[in-house]
């Protein structure tokens, strides 16, 4: 079993042979948990992307399954309703031959007032080695990681982070901006500057979005020119982040002008807008939001021809995104879902490699 290294490229990442157990692979991955993407280096992000390529290859096989995580128990503990992320993690873990346990907090003793600490201890006592946590309180996965003996994967916490979503978004952008081919294949080509200088717009409710926060980290680390756009009440606070990013050599801008944001954009990612924002006095109405910030065909015409349209889901069609845009030729929304499985397989695999063999 050997890893693939491209000797021609300085700093090229060694892509693991994913048919083998991860602990048998010489993988340059040092994180036991994936709680955020703020600490990932460009090389680590590259390793996730390359490993996801390998997982995509697995997914194309007649039997899309490898034995890499055989005998390991992955527990999926969700304190918030979710379909796509939960199922995506479950499919990813099963494709790696892991045993999967699903816990929806509403149907567990959590609803009887059990603390997160007690729940995590119980789950560990029941054999969990990897724990995927989704929680409505920012930072909750860090608490889980403090007490859990295995690896914790953040499946989305509050407004804070959604690491696998950002990684799958990045994967999708790289793939599609590369002309739709999977040219950055397993066999270690250089870290092509696919995102460098590309204008990526994140549009909508930034304030409450963990997807946006994680995307800011991964996209700016990849050299993208990231524009945040939304109503003044929903982009507040991000100006300071933009100023800090500039100091750190990362390109992040904030604007309330959708025209300025969309002009010559390579990627437009619309975020879900929620009705609660009206009750909080942040928006006058969904109608006004749709009129001023909805992603319509006319507005999309300001972007570069063929610009990618993305959405982390679930969508409110007709509010933040017009139905014809969501299902139009520039939309890669279903690719995001498909790639989500490959990226989550990659992350599970890399984290498993940091654990002692089962």
């Amino acid at each position, binding site marked *: 079993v050997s890893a693939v290294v491209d000797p021609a490229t300085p700093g090229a990442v060694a892509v693991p042979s994913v048919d083998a157990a991860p602990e048998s692979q010489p993988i340059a991955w040092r994180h036991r948990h994936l709680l955020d993407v703020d600490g990932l280096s460009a090389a680590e992000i590259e390793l996730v992307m390359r490993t996801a390529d390998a997982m995509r290859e697995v997914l194309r096989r007649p039997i899309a399954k490898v034995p890499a995580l055989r005998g390991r128990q992955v527990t999926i503990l969700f304190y918030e309703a979710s379909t796509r992320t939960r199922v995506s993690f479950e499919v990813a873990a099963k494709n790696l031959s892991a045993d999967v346990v699903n816990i929806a907090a509403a149907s567990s003793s959590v609803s009887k007032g059990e603390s997160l600490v007690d729940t995590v201890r119980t789950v560990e006592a029941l054999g969990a080695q990897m724990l995927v946590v989704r929680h409505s309180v*920012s*930072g*909750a996965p*860090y608490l889980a990681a403090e007490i859990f003996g295995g690896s914790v994967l953040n499946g989305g916490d509050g407004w*804070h982070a959604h690491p696998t979503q950002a990684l799958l978004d990045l994967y999708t952008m790289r793939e599609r901006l590369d002309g739709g081919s999977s040219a950055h294949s397993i066999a270690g080509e250089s870290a092509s500057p696919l995102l460098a200088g590309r204008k990526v717009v994140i549009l909508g409710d930034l304030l409450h979005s963990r997807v946006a926060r994680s995307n800011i980290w991964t996209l700016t680390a990849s050299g993208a020119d990231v524009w945040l756009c939304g109503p003044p009440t929903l982009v507040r*606070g991000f100006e300071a982040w933009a100023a*800090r990013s500039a100091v*750190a050599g990362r390109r992040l801008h904030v604007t309330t002008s959708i025209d300025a944001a969309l002009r010559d954009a390579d990627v437009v990612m619309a975020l879900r807008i929620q009705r609660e924002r009206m009750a909080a006095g942040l928006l006058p109405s969904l109608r006004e939001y749709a009129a001023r910030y909805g992603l319509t065909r006319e507005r999309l015409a300001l972007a570069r021809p063929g610009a990618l349209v993305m959405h982390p889901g679930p969508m409110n069609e007709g509010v933040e995104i017009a139905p014809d845009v969501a299902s139009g030729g520039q939309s890669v929304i279903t690719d995001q879902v498909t790639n989500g499985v490959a990226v989550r397989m990659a992350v599970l695999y890399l984290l498993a490699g940091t654990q002692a063999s089962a």
Partner: protein
Amino acid sequence: VTASGPDLEISRAWLVDPSIGREGPGEIVVRDGVLEAVTWLEGADADGIDAKGVVVAPGFVDLHAHLREPGNEDAETVATGLAAAAHGGFTTVCAMPNTEPALDEPGVLALIRAAAAASGSPVELLAHGAVTVGRAGEQLAALGELADAGVVGFSEDGHPTRSGPIFRAALAYAGALGLPIVEHSEDETLTTGAEANDGYVATVLGLRGWPVAAEASAVGRALALLDDVAADVPGARLHLTHVSTAASLALIREARLRALPVTCDVTPHHLALHDGWLAGTRDWAWDAIDDNGLARDPWRDGARAAPPFATSLRVNPPLRCPEDALACLAALADGTANAIATDHAPHREVDKAVEFGDAVNGISGIETALGVVLAAVDAGRLPLLRAIEALTSGPAGVIAGRSRRATAGLVEGAPADLVVFDRSESWLVTADALASRGKNSPLLGMSLRGRVLVTLAGGRVAYEAAAD
């Protein structure tokens, strides 16, 4: 240093007595608990004595501590709280009235006094009474009866005095009794669900923002009410506690210029810690500012030393940005802030071992206060004399006449109320090292300079460090 029972002789130390504005080499002698002699050394006798070693100061006065009894004895009791105070160098502690039941009538005061007596601690226990019955904000508590029973002020702490009319009435009523309203300034409509200081760190961590304006607007309202009342009630006084922002301090500074009868305190954590700690940095506020006076980025390479979202950092008001912390230090230095108060807020572990957003507010801080303040002194951010003044005669002035001590100074012939600490010695903050039941200190695992050797309160030994 020799200490045996109530006899103590300390030669060749650095004495600090803010009540007379003096510090320098000296000696003290305590006999049978009485501070018999305070000798200031001069000339050759003073050679080789500096402020970097053993310091003798008057015992500290804490205007703001939560002792949790009655009602939450799992978090702290009067006995453990007073033991913690003595360990921190405090010889007078003002307990906050947000107990269960609230200290809104003399019976509750009698109860905690009995607990203090039963504890055997010589630390002086004082208390603030609630402003309203049950701290419910609707009806004035028994202010006159509480004053007669000996409370030192009135406070709704934990919350602001919500009702404008009640706040106004309380300022007048307490003013006639010669007591201050001790106000926790917060516009709670701006802080519903808030988790962390509104700003860069909260934005990146996805924490609900707690605006500076929520404090400053409440301070503005309190000062306007005081202005209104003080015109008719000469004794009306307002003390703003745990002020945490430059904006609030600017308003207070301006009110002082107009001679409004307002005092205020800042906490050790608000002057030295900052919101970058939520992201995982562990640097003092003055080290978190760059040469241009701007806060440094907690996400810069290598800056984060701990995991983010530590619930020991969750506190009300929240840890602010480094600029605000420096404003607290500047306010201490220029006298705008009269006192350093700990806002010692012990909690049970189960109330902190939860998600950040669900954790209770508060830092167990009475034992680390001196070390944190000395860190600011060591960094050249605060003169030692001024720091000690803000821990002694500053707060004593706010509760003037209500303490057993005539002044918070080194008074010859009076029962000794003093602390001896060694600035050259460090101690490791650990759960075991804290006498408080509340182990909720964000400084656990850190080493603090300035180890307390002896605390004498009312002429008795309140704390004595174990011999090495």
